[in-house]
């Protein structure tokens, strides 16, 4: 497994080099089975067209204790910068602990006036290629969700069949996209996450039965950014998607869609544009969100195997919530510089709240607070009373005025219809009210002649203080 982890680190470093370059780049991951004196090895080669490496990142690579079980700890690095006239070759011995002793310079090769930059790192391991391939594929697929501009990613595997023939298989390949003027990292992430949700977080193909259109997706995002020191600004971006697989009632659910109904949410966590195990700062932040403000009740938040999983209470049956969380420095460095856990916690919390609020704002009735949900319960009764009032009136003008206010056709309106209409309006008014930041309620509608909250009394006063006209003994003059 260490090789897998190493590969992920190497890919992340490639991403950073690409980001640093500013130009459209490509990252290729190439896996090949080779046989060296009857032993089968897997050769892994990760190449990018980003800026050339200053090799520091390789010197600082961290490998776990059991890292060298199935692997010799040797990397071959080939790199060149735009300004270089040669292509440099190195060996990196990761078994060596002291960083400055790791590097072994090999003879350079000429660039023949070509102008390009890039790095290729390769190593070989005794690990099974298929396993490595699956890991890489899942890692890169997660990375693709970020929909980075300027970076195309491909994963190619070469294997030999029983006849000794080589077969090359492109497992995954993205094209370069041009950034639209409106686009931004978070919007790209949102778009990527949408795709991911539509594939039920698993499949290569969009699930047509669940997501014939994207109307069932409710997407919200939030960004929080804060200067760390100097130019160094930490950004946290969050995308939350609520998918309502309404079409897939239990009656026509295919087993392949079943996972869609799990009421669990695995948080996708990115750091510096790479998938990453969830950082403590984010765990802390996610635990401190006031979910009930959004009608959500996490039954449990578990931090299992580097991934954070929410289990929700009372989520409607066909609803799923997806959360992606991306935290990165505006300033790109290779390797990335990280510090300021407290700041990150704060920003994660802020970004998540903003994303939730964004959802609430955009989609009526989404993420209603517990409070609003309770108030919802009163809507049918209130609607029945008011429609009853209107319909029992023997004054046609009044009725018509009501209908027109409600935007209904004047004339004979069916009671049920009227009731439903009013109910809908009430509910959306409640929802609207819920979206507003607290303190901005509908107070304005009440004409106070005297100050505002002075005369606001605790509720019990209203409920219990007043006697009726019969009790002249309760004469609190």
């Amino acid at each position, binding site marked *: 497994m260490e090789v897998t982890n190493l590969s992920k680190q190497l890919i992340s470093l490639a991403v950073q080099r690409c980001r640093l370059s500013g130009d459209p780049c490509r990252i290729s991951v190439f896996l090949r089975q080779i046989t060296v004196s009857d032993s089968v090895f897997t050769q892994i080669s990760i190449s990018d067209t980003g800026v050339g490496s200053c090799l520091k990142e390789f010197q600082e690579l961290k490998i776990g204790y059991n890292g060298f079980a199935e692997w010799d700890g040797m990397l071959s690095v080939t790199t060149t910068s735009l300004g270089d006239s040669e292509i440099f070759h190195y060996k990196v011995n990761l078994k060596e602990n002291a960083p400055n002793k790791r590097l072994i310079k090999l003879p350079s090769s000429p660039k023949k006036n070509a102008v390009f930059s890039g790095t290729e790192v390769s190593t070989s391991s005794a690990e099974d290629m298929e396993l490595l391939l699956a890991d890489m594929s899942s890692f890169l697929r997660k990375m693709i969700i970020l929909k980075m501009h300027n970076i195309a990613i491909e994963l190619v595997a070469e294997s030999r069949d029983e006849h000794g023939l080589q077969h090359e298989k492109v497992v995954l390949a993205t094209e370069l996209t041009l950034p639209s003027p409106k686009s931004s990292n978070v919007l790209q992430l949102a778009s990527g996450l949408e795709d991911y949700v539509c594939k039920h977080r698993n499949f290569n193909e969009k699930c047509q039965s669940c997501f014939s259109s994207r109307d069932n997706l409710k997407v919200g995002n939030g960004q929080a950014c804060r200067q760390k020191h100097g130019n160094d600004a930490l950004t946290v971006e969050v995308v939350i998607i609520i998918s309502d697989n309404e079409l897939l009632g239990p009656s026509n659910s295919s087993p392949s869609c079943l996972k869609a109904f799990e009421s669990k949410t695995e948080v996708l966590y990115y750091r510096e544009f790479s998938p990453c195990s969830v950082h403590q700062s984010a765990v802390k932040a996610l635990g401190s969100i006031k979910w009930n403000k959004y009608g959500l009740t996490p039954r449990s938040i578990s931090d299992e195997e580097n991934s954070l999983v929410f289990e929700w209470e009372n989520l409607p049956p066909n609803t799923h919530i997806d959360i992606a969380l991306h935290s990165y420095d505006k300033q790109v460095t290779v390797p990335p510089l990280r510090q300021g856990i407290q700041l990150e916690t704060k920003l994660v919390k802020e970004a998540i709240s903003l994303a939730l609020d964004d959802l609430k704002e955009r989609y009526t009735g989404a993420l209603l607070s517990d409070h609003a949900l309770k*108030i919802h319960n009163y809507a049918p*009764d209130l609607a029945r009373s*008011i429609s009853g*009032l209107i319909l029992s*009136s023997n004054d046609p003008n009044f009725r018509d005025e009501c209908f027109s206010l409600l935007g209904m056709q004047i004339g004979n309106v069916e009671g049920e219809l009227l009731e439903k209409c009013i109910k809908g309006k009430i509910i959306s008014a409640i929802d609207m009210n819920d979206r507003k930041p607290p303190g901005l309620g509908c107070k304005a509608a009440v004409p106070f002649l005297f100050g505002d909250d002075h005369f606001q009394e605790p509720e019990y006063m209203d409920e219990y203080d007043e006697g*009726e*006209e019969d009790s002249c003994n309760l*004469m*609190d003059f």
Partner: protein
Amino acid sequence: MWELFQSSLLFSHQQLCYADILSPSQVRARIEVAVLNFLKILNSPNPEITDLPLTSRNSKNTNVYRGLMSDNSHIFLSHSFSKRSMMRENAAKAFVRVWKVMEMCYQILVEEKRVTQRELYYKLLCTSSEYFSSQTQVNRTVQDVVALLHCSRYSLGIMASTRGLIAGRLLLQEPNREVVDCSVCGSSGHPISGDLSMLESLSMKTDARYIIVIEKHAIFQRLVEDCFFNQVPSILITAKGCPDLATRFLLHKITKAFPNLPILALVDWNPAGLSILCTFKYGSIGMGLEAYKYACNVRWLGVRGDDLQLIPEESMAPLKPKDKQIAKSLTSMEILPDDYKEELSLMVQRGQRAEIEALYCHGYDFLGKYLAKKIVQADYI
């Protein structure tokens, strides 16, 4: 209609908030305005569920009106609102209750019927039992509706039991009806109808020189049986205990028609008796918006501390805990004149109460003589 609502319901320019006696169609119009207001805001680009602005009925919203030119003073509720808000979770139920009661009242008004509060409770129990679990809740909500629509409970189509009685030198006439002579209507007197609009339409004639408000039915009966009103030309009125609206309404109407008649009260010498007097005089918060509109300048004829010499010790009883409680709230009443407060503190200090009936130990004729003497000597405060 919207304009009407604004001017009459919410943006009243008067200092006082009070409940009007309205015709069913006027009440219906007010309810309709409330509905339209609700729908309008609900349907606006920025939809909301309007809070119901109720004039609050508690001591904080109480003001004292002191007449400058007359002795007339009363308490009133000013325009402070307590809200029935749907958006507050613990108030949402009360909010819906108000609409439920309004709906029910509206239907009753459309049917041109009236209901008793008990019937209203049953009707609401059957349509929305989850909102109304007791009669008290219904009664309270009715008061809310009164405070919202600023119309009397009676106008909402709710029948009250009639308690008040009137007798004496007064002729009453409903339009197109026979004249009722209150001096010859038997010892039980003439019942005061709960139909406020009928009372409103009464025409009256009197040659009385006093109006006497009597706390107790039995005392009233005694005075009527003795034709006291012929001895001292007067009108006798009782609400059989704590005054109901109809009785206060009629008393107020009589004093409006005959402003020169002094109103004298004969109540028990105990805090409860005084509180009954004060309810006639000032109104009470408990009666909400219906309270003070019918305040009358009632004066305290008896029983007062000065009369205790007429009452043997064995006719005095110790104050009950309830008396003490009432005394406490009366003492804190800003409006209470000093001489009333002195009486009250005498009661508390002696720890005793005396009933009007205690005067009977001097014979059943005595009460009349006692009253006549006090009236002639203008012995009232």
